[in-house]
């Protein structure tokens, strides 16, 4: 324990003193782990004119979750505590997680970069403790680390592309023109969307790579007009992780067809404009406390704390192993303020949840879209099913 420093910020919510209690409540500790100087939270580049939202640490979501479960703790005679542990910038995450585990927390929230998540998971025996990914949407974490201690409350990227594909199939906008950027992330997004389109019966009629810029010799790749004029399509899918090209597609396209993907209609776990199922109240509480809109990551941290609290209240699960087992037991209804109770998939420990399809200021639809059915749960129409992976339920 010499190569890292511990920053322990204990922010417990006390059970109300208004209640006379026969025995003192027991502590249920959750630990939030992040890394110092994480480049993910660097202010975004503002040199190219793209308006980007700065990533903000989702500990604010976990803190709201802690507040929201305080009354449940009062009823269950449990005192929920959130501790904040920061891995040093050059620290070894595996060593830190081992040290944290030695303190017997009931749950750990991971606000860590992709590779740190992988290292952390390898240091923790499966079933001993739930490590909850609240930040990383990449499918490979679900595919390759299934059956481990890793849980995910943030949706997978393929759940997002499935939601978009359901929407266009439902609208009968089945012919898709895809515009794909030069970044590896763009290729990955396009690949996932193509799989989703195939899964639900949309057809990619044409694919055009694009680059940013105005070079007239490359106008086949940088002119929206040239890219969108030829083929017969119903909708344009844009894969643009950088954002510099995609923002100019809508209204510069030749044909009056909607834009989805990285621009136009987007898929998210959460949105500040969600107006049903109790979402406005959650957004309002969050904005009042944090002074900003609730992000997908904030929501994922919030729901992870709520799920763990439910495990405590319903299953009397107080240890890391007991919470982990309770989350997978299927006996807990996780209220997500998205209209359908959630649960964790046995095969990859992904939280089943609806996906919001939204523009900048309105939630247009929630997937699963009506009509897409599944033998177990309609929520399993979104993201990786047990058939898509080698993961087996444990």
């Amino acid at each position, binding site marked *: 324990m010499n190569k890292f420093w511990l920053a322990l910020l204990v922010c417990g919510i006390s059970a109300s003193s208004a209640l006379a209690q026969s025995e003192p409540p027991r502590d249920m500790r959750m630990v939030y782990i992040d890394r110092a100087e994480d480049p993910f939270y660097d202010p975004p580049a503002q040199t190219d004119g793209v308006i980007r939202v700065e990533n903000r640490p989702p500990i604010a979501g976990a803190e709201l979750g802690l507040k929201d479960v305080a009354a449940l703790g009062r009823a269950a005679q449990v005192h929920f505590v959130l501790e904040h542990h920061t891995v040093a910038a050059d620290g070894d995450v595996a060593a830190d997680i081992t040290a944290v585990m030695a303190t017997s927390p009931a749950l750990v929230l991971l606000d860590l970069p992709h590779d740190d998540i992988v290292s952390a998971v390898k240091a923790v025996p499966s079933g001993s403790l739930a490590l909850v990914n609240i930040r990383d949407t990449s499918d490979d974490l679900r595919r390759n680390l299934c059956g481990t201690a890793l849980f995910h409350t943030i949706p997978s990227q393929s759940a997002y592309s499935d939601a978009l594909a359901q929407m266009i199939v439902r609208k009968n906008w089945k012919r898709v023109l895809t515009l794909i950027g030069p970044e590896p992330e763009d290729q990955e997004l396009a690949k996932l969307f193509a799989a989703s389109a195939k899964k639900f019966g949309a057809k990619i009629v044409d694919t055009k790579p694009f680059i940013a810029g105005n070079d007239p010799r490359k106008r086949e790749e940088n002119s929206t007009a040239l890219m969108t004029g030829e083929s017969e399509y119903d909708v344009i899918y844009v894969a643009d992780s950088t954002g510099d090209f995609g923002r100019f597609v809508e209204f510069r396209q030749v044909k009056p067809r909607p834009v989805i993907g990285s621009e136009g209609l987007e898929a998210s776990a959460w949105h500040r404009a969600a107006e049903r199922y109790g979402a406005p*109240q959650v957004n309002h509480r969050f904005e009042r406390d944090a002074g900003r809109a609730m992000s997908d990551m904030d929501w994922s941290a919030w729901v992870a704390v709520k799920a763990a609290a439910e495990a405590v209240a319903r299953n009397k699960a107080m240890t890391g192993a007991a919470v982990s087992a309770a989350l997978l037991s299927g006996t807990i209804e996780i209220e997500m303020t998205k209209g359908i109770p959630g649960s964790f998939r046995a095969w990859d420990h992904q939280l089943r949840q609806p996906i919001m399809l939204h523009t900048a200021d309105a939630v247009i639809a929630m997937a699963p879209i009506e009509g897409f059915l599944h033998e177990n749960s309609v929520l399993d129409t979104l993201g990786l099913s047990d058939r898509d992976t080698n993961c087996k339920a444990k």
Partner: protein
Amino acid sequence: MNIISKHFVYGLSCLLVGLLTEAPAQAGSGLVFVSNERSSQLTVLDQSDTVIKQIKTCARPRGMRFTPDHSKIVVACGSDNTIALYDVATQKLVKRFRDIPDPETFDLHPNGKDLYVSNEDDSEATLLDLETGQVKGHFPTGPEPEGVLVTPDGKTVFVASEAANLVHVIDVETQKVIKDIITATRPRRFALTPDGKELWVSCEMSGLVEIIDTATLTETGRVDFQPKGMRKEEVTPVDITMTASGKTLYAALGRANHVAVVDVAKRTVLDYILVGKRPWGLRLTKDEKKLYVANGLSDDLSIIDTASGKVLKSVPVGIVPYGILIDE
């Protein structure tokens, strides 16, 4: 509360004492009042169930009650932190209590002046004295407190916390929360059997009604709802109402677009009646021949003939109708 508004409340409260002690109205007008939370209106229907008036109200009116003499309607307006009183006869605003944070719904103590209010945004319930305008009590709840029920003997108040899956029990005499009962997911509204022994609680996200024994304050049973052809997650009961005899309970099933009819003694579902989209609010007429249903997502009322279990009429009202009152 700042000084100016305090004076305002004190000033008006003197006026209100007079208003509340007026002689009871002779016979009810038969008018039906509907609060519309999205269009901030009260819709007024006459005895033939025809819309005769739309009254602009404070912002986001939801819970409503008559004062004991039926001369006023108390309305909770969540978006401008107001409890407002409207005169039944003139249908004009007569009084506002400001600075009541985000009130959603409430119940009136049998003493006619103590209003127990759920403050959705503040994770608490408050006690507003309608005579003095003073907030006399604060009770800690879970997030998003919703349904409030004061028992007819005036001794106990139940408050449901939607987002905490709890029912809080407030002892009126000591003014303390004496118990938090863990319920199924998203408890919303209450109905009490006439003998006071069973508290029925709708649990929206679990698609059921839970029955709490009021002596032991523990759950003793459940009634599950499963209308034909509906997926479980579409069954989201909110408002429930019981007949005076305690024989029958009606439950508005939200996204399942049905009202369930329940045999209270047997705890079984007798019927499902198809209504409009996302029914929440319910109100029986005094003779229990008609059941009014507020359909939040089709902006209308379904009016059910309880004898036949058929919808007699659908009446468009305002945007997102929530609560219903009948002056009779």
